[in-house]
Each structure stands twice: as structure tokens, then as C-alpha cells.
């Protein structure tokens, strides 16, 4: 087994007929997406030895569309950050696309580091049934790939209402099929002036290069203001920590996962098993969640109030412009090396707003480049405007190819 995969599928299934929409597309999944019979530990000792009894809805749909599930990658513990994450690396080694959970920008930042496309769909489009999640109100299955078309194909397959996921809204489906050719320029793109303070000199130059690329295909760039921008991180941190602490409650060492031999009684069994199950920084994150839950619940409610305001401000701004544009990753804050909750948050500062608001966002490689450094160009759209967002990204990408 290579260092990339925790499990490599033995592909014995007959190749799907050519008529299958994903015939021959090789997909890698993170080990937090349930595949019946595959080990699936979400990178955590809390799920030591866990083998799902059922496929995730995403997996069911991929299989029936003829995709080849090549295996599962390694991932950061419970999908918090990118330490140890390998699914994007697999794109060079046996896989065409990676299905990975995007909770604060993981799919986009990972793709930006490796020079790939990365897409986080609107919240509520893709079923979370069978996803071993951490932050239910923010996470969704994203897709990383070498080209946008395969991402669009995957989205066409996996998006859509699933009665088994009660968190999905009753909304009409988003039509991805007309995406590649559907783009009708020109468009208005906004840059959030409050976000520019985060950039160092190289990043500012690279971002400018990315904007120039957009202008070249007819985009009108204008500066807009999101007064609450600086609060995105605090809101994400508070809400996500509380949801994570709550989600991790199920790791009780009773029905699955790691059981410590230490506990002589029930409380000690919980304490020891859960103590041994989680590593830093997830463990520290869970303590933050417990702090808000048990010591300062008012702060959680306040964060939810601010979240409401941020969603409204974002919606308002996206009424005036078609998209918002940001860089994707930060050169001085390496998501792959982040060892503390604070460092993890620093590295996803540019991507996490889309998770707070549930907006779709796509990372495009090859345009925000300066001195050979590609920080990634991130375009974020209105919720449920995923298809148009991907069209715009396609237009930019083809202009890059054309030089």
C-alpha cells in the first residue's frame, strides 16, 4: 500500500458501459466517506477499525454512475485541517478526482497547494448521509480535480435531494449539465477590501495577476465592502467548535471505535477511551467546543446572531456583483503543518467565509501567480448559483490554457 492510500480497492467490477456518465472516471475518497466493507476511520483513533455497513449516498451515486472508486486516502483527524491529508496527492497517482470534505476550505486550499481545481458546492446540495462529519452546518463534500469538467461531471452525479439526509432543504435541484458551455460573459466581480489586509506583498502581486486574468475575459472588477469580514473567523471557530464537540459525543467506545482497557467503571471508560481517541489539535478544538457549550453558551448564540448578519451582508453584496474574488491560500500559514487550532484557522482565513455562508466557491490554478508562486484564485458565488460559478471558472481556466 502506498503512503497515499489507507485502502486501495481491488477493481474487479466489470467496466461500466460507455453510456454511464462517469464511466472510467477514477475517484478517490477520504476515509470519512462510508464505503461498505472498507476501513473508514476518518483519520482518528476514535474510529479505530471501523468498517461501515452501508455506502454513503455520495458513494452509491458514484458507483451507479459507473465511477471507479480506487481507494481511500489519508486525512487529517476527523477532517479538521490538512495535516496528513493525501487525497489531492493521489490525483497524480491513480485518481482523476478526489471527493473530500470541505469544512473550512480544505478542498480548495489543498487544490491550490498542488495546482489543481477545487470546488466547494453550495451548502445543502450534496447528501451528507454516510459522511462521518464534524461540523454539520458548514461541511460539505467538495471535489478536487485536474480539470473542471471532471468536477462538473462528479457534481452532476452526486448533487440532489436525498431523503436519508434530513438536513437537506426542499429546494429544486441545481442543474450542472449545462455548465461548461453555459457561460455568457461579461460579469462583475467584487474584491472585498477588508480581505486585502491579510495579504503580504507577494500575495498581493499574485492576486493582482489573477484579477488581470479575469479582466482579460471581460470581467469588471470593483472593490466592495463586507463590514463584518473580520468576524468570519470568530463565528466559524465558535460554531464549528460547538458542533464538533457535539458530533464527537457519539465516540463513546460502545458501539464502535477505540475502547481503552483502563476504565473500571462507565465514567472512567468514557474518559479514558475518549482521551486516547483524540489527538491535538482536534482534542483542543473539542475542548473549545465544550467551553462554549458548558461555560459560555451565550457566546455560541451570539456567534449564531453574527452568522445571520454575515449571511445577509454577503447576500447583499452578491446582489450588486456576480461573484466575489479572493486568493485561496496563504503563503505564510501552511495548512499542512498547522499543529494548533489557531494555526489551522490562520491557514483557512481566506476560504472559511464560504463555509459560514454556505456559498459555493471554486479554486482556479495558474492565474494568481507571482514569482512562480501560485496562491490560487478563489471565486465565490451566490448560494445555488454553482453552475454559473463553474462556468466563469471554466472561462478563466480556458484563457489560462490559451496563454
Amino acid at each position, binding site marked *: 500500500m502506498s503512503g497515499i492510500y489507507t485502502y486501495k480497492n481491488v477493481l474487479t467490477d466489470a467496466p461500466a458501459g460507455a453510456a454511464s456518465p462517469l464511466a472510467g472516471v477514477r475517484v478517490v475518497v477520504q476515509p470519512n466517506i462510508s464505503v461498505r466493507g472498507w476501513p473508514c476511520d476518518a483519520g482518528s483513533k476514535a474510529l479505530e*477499525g471501523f*468498517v461501515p*455497513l452501508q455506502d454513503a449516498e455520495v458513494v452509491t451515486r458514484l458507483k451507479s454512475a459507473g465511477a471507479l472508486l480506487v481507494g481511500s486516502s489519508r486525512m487529517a483527524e476527523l477532517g479538521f485541517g490538512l495535516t496528513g491529508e493525501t487525497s489531492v496527492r493521489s490525483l497524480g497517482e491513480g485518481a482523476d478526482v478526489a471527493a473530500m470534505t470541505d469544512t473550512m476550505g480544505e478542498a480548495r486550499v489543498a487544490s491550490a497547494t498542488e495546482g489543481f481545481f477545487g470546488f466547494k458546492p453550495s451548502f*445543502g446540495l450534496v447528501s451528507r448521509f454516510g459522511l462521518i462529519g464534524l461540523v454539520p452546518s458548514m461541511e460539505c463534500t467538495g471535489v478536487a480535480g485536474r480539470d473542471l469538467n471532471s468536477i462538473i461531471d462528479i457534481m452532476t452525479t452526486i448533487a440532489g435531494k436525498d431523503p436519508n439526509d434530513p438536513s437537506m432543504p426542499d429546494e429544486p435541484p441545481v442543474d450542472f449539465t449545462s455548465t461548461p458551455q453555459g457561460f455568457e460573459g461579461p460579469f462583475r466581480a467584487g474584491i472585498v477590501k477588508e480581505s486585502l489586509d491579510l495579504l503580504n506583498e507577494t500575495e498581493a502581486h499574485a492576486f493582482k495577476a489573477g484579477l488581470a486574468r479575469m479582466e482579460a475575459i471581460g470581467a469588471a472588477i470593483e472593490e466592495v465592502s463586507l463590514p463584518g469580514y473580520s468576524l468570519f473567523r470568530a463565528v466559524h471557530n465558535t460554531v464549528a467548535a460547538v458542533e464538533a464537540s457535539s458530533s464527537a459525543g457519539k465516540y463513546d467506545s460502545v458501539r*464502535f471505535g477505540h475502547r481503552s482497557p483502563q476504565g473500571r467503571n462507565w465514567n472512567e471508560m468514557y474518559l479514558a477511551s475518549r482521551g486516547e481517541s483524540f489527538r491535538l489539535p482536534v482534542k483542543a478544538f473539542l475542548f473549545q467546543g465544550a*467551553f462554549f457549550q*458548558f461555560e459560555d453558551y451565550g457566546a455560541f448564540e*451570539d456567534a449564531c446572531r453574527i452568522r*445571520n448578519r454575515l449571511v445577509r451582508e454577503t447576500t447583499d453584496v452578491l446582489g450588486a456583483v456576480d461573484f466575489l474574488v479572493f486568493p485561496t491560500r496563504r503563503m505564510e500559514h501552511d495548512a499542512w503543518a498547522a499543529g494548533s487550532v489557531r494555526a489551522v484557522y490562520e491557514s483557512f482565513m481566506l476560504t472559511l467565509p464560504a463555509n459560514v455562508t454556505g456559498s459555493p466557491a471554486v479554486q482556479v490554478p495558474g492565474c494568481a501567480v507571482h514569482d512562480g508562486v501560485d496562491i490560487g484564485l478563489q471565486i465565490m458565488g451566490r448560494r445555488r448559483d454553482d453552475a454559473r460559478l463553474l462556468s466563469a471558472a471554466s472561462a478563466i481556466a480556458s484563457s489560462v490554457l490559451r496563454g
Partner: protein
Amino acid sequence: MTFSERLHCGLLGLPDVGEEVLLAGWVDALRDHGEVLFIHLRDRSGIVQVVFSPGPSGAEVCTAAAGLKAEYCIRVKGRVVKRIEGTENPGIATGEIEVAATELTVLSKAGTLPFPISEKSMVAGVSAKRDESVSEDLRLQYRYLDLRRPTMQDHLVKRHRVAKIVRDYLDEQGFVEVETPMLTKSTPEGARDYLVPSRHYPKSFYALPQSPQLFKQLLMVSGMERYFQIVRCFRDEDLRPNRQPEFTQLDLEASFIEEEYLYSLFEEMTVRMFRVGGVELPRPYPRMTWLDAMNLTGSDRPDLRFGMTFKDATDVFTNTGYGIFKQILGRGGCIKGINVKGQSERLSKNILQNEYAKEIVPGFGAKGMTWMRVVDGGLESNIVQFFSDAERRGILERFAAEKGDVILMIADPSWPLVCSALGQLRLHLAERLGLIPRDVYYPLWVTDFPLFEATEHGVTSSHHPFTMPDRTDFDPEKVDELLALKSRAYDLVMNGEELGGGSIRINDRALQNRIFKALGLSDAEVEEKFGFFLKALEYGAPPHGGIALGMDRVVAMILGTPSIREVIAFPKNRSAYCPLTDAPSTVASAQLAELGLLDLGGAGQALPGGLEQQDLVDRLVWVSRIAIDDAERADIAAAVADAKNVAGLVRNNSGDDEPMTSVVVVENHTREGTTARVSEFAQTGEIFKNAPAEKGGFFKVAAVLE
């Protein structure tokens, strides 16, 4: 009409037909027939049907009645009428009549009920037996609703009746009920005490009484002669399903009496108590010495509703060639057995060997079990070939064995072990084979208990150190002599349960001193623990003795309830917790500080609200049940400090929007085309594939308590 004119629902009948009555109670059930609405109105006395129809009731009352729901508290005026032939309901006592309502007042509305309360069907012949699957904790959380059920009210009424019979009878016999204190001194004997901290004496504690033992003896010294009390006692013992941390005891003590007086008093009293449940106990109650009880049933509280008592077969094998028996007898052991009459069909070789000999009996502490099935021409067994002809004949004779019987024997060097293991086996088989007759009550006095039990260092009291021995001429330094002493103690046992027990007490200070000496207690220890009591024995203490009876258990047995919680109004649950009030609970540090308890344990000892609990990270470790090690502590403390800062930031910027928990609008609705069902993974057992530990179709976890 005022409430003073109110009549009781359950007492109405044909003689009341034509009367105008005022009733008040709760809506037990409703049946809506369009124009006509029937309700069952329930008060403590029972149920009567009330009819609302446009004619007699009028449109206004009918409209008001249409808004009624179960358990509304209402007042109804109406006329008693005979039911139309064919519509009588024999399921309720008032089933021949109904009340045609003319006035209705809703006294108090009721919210959605956590579980159904009605126990009576409104239609003849239809069972309204409520769904028994209501969880007990839910019942206890809403105990005030649970107690509205006629069954539960009946339990409380009968319990009251039993207590009243006790008081009346003992009053007749010259007993006086005297109250003894609840806040007393902790004594290190018996079970753990519940402690009550004293504010006036910091770091000092009262104890709640485990029983009023010493006080009732002091009342005898006081010359009260005949005392009793129905009293709450407290014991902080390990959790058991049918045990309560506080329980009610009938406590009794009398002077100038012998055992016979108490036997006769208690027999007459218990006979009267059991009559409340319609049970007639036969007097006199049989008696059995402790030694016989052990030798025949392996238990000091024998269940004699069925036979299968032990036979000793040690002498049959005195000269045996069978190695295992020979070795056991060589070490002074014994062999006892039971004859399971006529059950060889149901106890196959496989069950006897693989279940009982290999699994069940070793669980009772014995190393093995010998089984023999009686067949044509002798015994069938895996070891019978090692027995001589004489031994085989001896067995058949000793156990009066006939074809179809199964003989089970346990041999061991230790007599108590043989008795205990065989006793448990006897009960196990009786339960499994259905040999215990229902509705049979077998009271029994067990007498002549050993006064002392052996310990590593000497002896300890079997009962308590104030129990009178059968002889007083013993040498307190000779352990063998001490272990041969019998006590003048007695237990009242019924159907394998101990209902109560007591003893004749020591009233002589010198004898009491020798008992303490035998127990190895120094004068200083004795003085500290019992000084106040021993001093009382120096002032003309009369000869006296007494007995105590567990009221909860007796009432539960009289009423035939599955647990004692069914006969207690507000019990704790199996975990000694009260779901209604959430007791026990933590208390504020200020309260502990006031009691001087914060620094009680000294350094390094955790106390609720103490310094260690004050540490934020440790508190979070506890509430989130995630242990941390020293290497992680600094990082986690830093992350929690960050969280505190974030909390400050969001607080200062919160604004006044509504909190948003999801960016999408999610409607709750039932999944289409599905019905409630058991997961196929649960049915196939596949669900256990990922379990760290499974046992017999359950997830196995650590014990609730150590």
C-alpha cells in the same frame, strides 16, 4: 353548589338514578360521537361516564365539552341516569349508570401527556391495558401523573391500610410509637452512612440512621417496655435493582419477653397485614435452625415453596475409589446433592454437561458438578463408571431416585461452598423448570444463627454486637469456642426473601464487655464508638429484645408488585437517582464554604466544588468525558484561553439578529414511503461487527459503578 356537595364518581350507582349530582375530577378518556361526547370522569374513588348531548346539556355546555382533553381537571353537574340496555360497561364499577351533564367548568387544563394514564376502556369487552413499555425513568420524572393511575393509587392506599393495621394491632398490644432522631452519630458498623455536614460544628457530621437500633434499646432502659416505630432508614449501599437508599422499616422492641412472645406477636401481625392483599397465611409459621437451612437449601433465607432440598451423600462415598471424591473427602470435605424429580426429559446430557457442569455451576463458585440421570437399570452419567455397585445403590437409595429423575451433586473440601453453590443451583433449576408455584406464600422463622463468623484475625459479629448469645460461659479468647456459639437471633423469611429479623439483646454490661473483647476491640475503641450506650447498661437495663420488618418489601410482596418502587410514592430509580427532582445534585461552592467543606480533603483530594473542580480545563475534561495527559495540558489550556477571547469578541459584536443555526431552511417531515422498522443490521447482528465488546446480543460496557 359548592364542593362540599360534591359526590365521588366511583360510588355512584343505580340507587342514585334521577339525582342531580356535582362531580369533580379528571378526564380519564373521551369518545366523540359527533353530536354526543362521552367522557370517563375519574377521581380517587373511581370512574363514571359523563355524557354531553345537545338535549340535556345545551349547546353552550356541548361546545365547552368539545374542548376537553385527557387529564383536564373539571367540575361537572348533571343528572344520574340508567344506561340504555346493551350499553352497560361491566369494566367499571359504575357501568350501569351514566351522568347527563348540565354544567361544565374547566378547573385546570392539562398539557400533552408524556404517557397515557387511562387504564379503563370506555367500551365493554375492550381491554385498555396501557402500553407497558413506558420507561420507568419517564414515569418517575412525571411521578405525579403516574400516581394518577388507579393501579398506583391502589398501591398507596393499600400501603396506608397495611401501616394502619400495624399501628392498630400494636396499639392493642400495648406498644407506643416513639420517634427517634434522624440526625444521629455515625457508627462504623454495618453499611455506609449518609452524612449530613454540620454548619455549627465545621468539618463535623451527623449521620442519618441505618436503623434506630441503639435508641430503641435506650427506650427499653427508659422503661417504655413496648416501643414501635414506622421509621425511615438510610443505607449508602451498592446499587441493586430492588434496593432504595432510604427505606421504611417497622421497628419494634419490648422488655421482659422471650422469643416466643415475639414470634406469636409477629405472626398475628403479619397474618393481618397479608389479608390486605387477600392472602391468608397459615399459623403457626414453621421454624428451622440456621444449620438445617444451610444443610437443606444452602441459604439462610430458604425458599420452601418447592422441594428439591439437599441430601448429604458424604457417607455413601467413604471408601470410594473415585479419585476426585477421595481427595475431597480426604481433606475433610463433603458431598451434597439434589434430586430433580422426573425432569430427565428436559435436562439432556448436553444441558447438564455443557451448560450446568461447565458454565453455570462454576459461576456459583464450585469447581464442578456431578450429574446422573436415572434410567432403566441404573444411572447414566459421564463418571458413573468410576462408582462401585454399592455406591450406585447408595445414591439411588439416598435420593429416593426413580426412573426419569436427575441427581446433581457437588463435592468440595469447603462445607459453606458446597451449600452455597448447590443452593444457587437449586434456585436456578427451580426457576428454569418452572417448579416454583405462583401465589403460594411460605413464611418461615430461621433461628439459632452463629453468633460470630471467622475472619482472618479472629471473629466478627454475624448480626450485631448487642445480640444475646445462647450461652454466657464462653472464653472470649478461644476462637473455636466463640465460633460454636449460637445467637438468640431470628429472621422472618418468606419465599426466599428476608422480611425482617431481630434478636434478644444483651442487657448486662459485663457480658457486653466480653463480647467486645471477643471481637478484639480495645476499651478505648469501645468507649469512642458506643460509650454513651454502654453507660446506659449500667443503670438497671431490663432484659429486652426486638425485631424489624422491611415495610417496602413486605408491601410489595403483599401486593405482588415486581419492584418495591411500585409501592413507594416518590422512589429513587435503580441508580439511586430521583428523575423528578434531579437529586442528588451539585451545590454551590458558597454552600460548601459555609459548611467548611471546601478544604476538607486536604491537598490533592478532589471534592465537589473544591479547588480542582474549579480548574476550567479539568471541569471540561469531566463534562466532555475526554481525559488529557500532562503533555497535552498546556496546548489545551491555550486553546481554551483562545476560546475565551473569541467569546469576548463575539459578545462585543453580537448585534440583535436572530441566531442562525443553518443557512438553509429545513422543513421537518416524515420520510415518504417508509414506516418505522427495526434496522436490518440490528436484526442480523451485523451492527455488532464494529463493537469493541459484545456479549449475547448487547453492547458490553464497563460497570456503572466499580
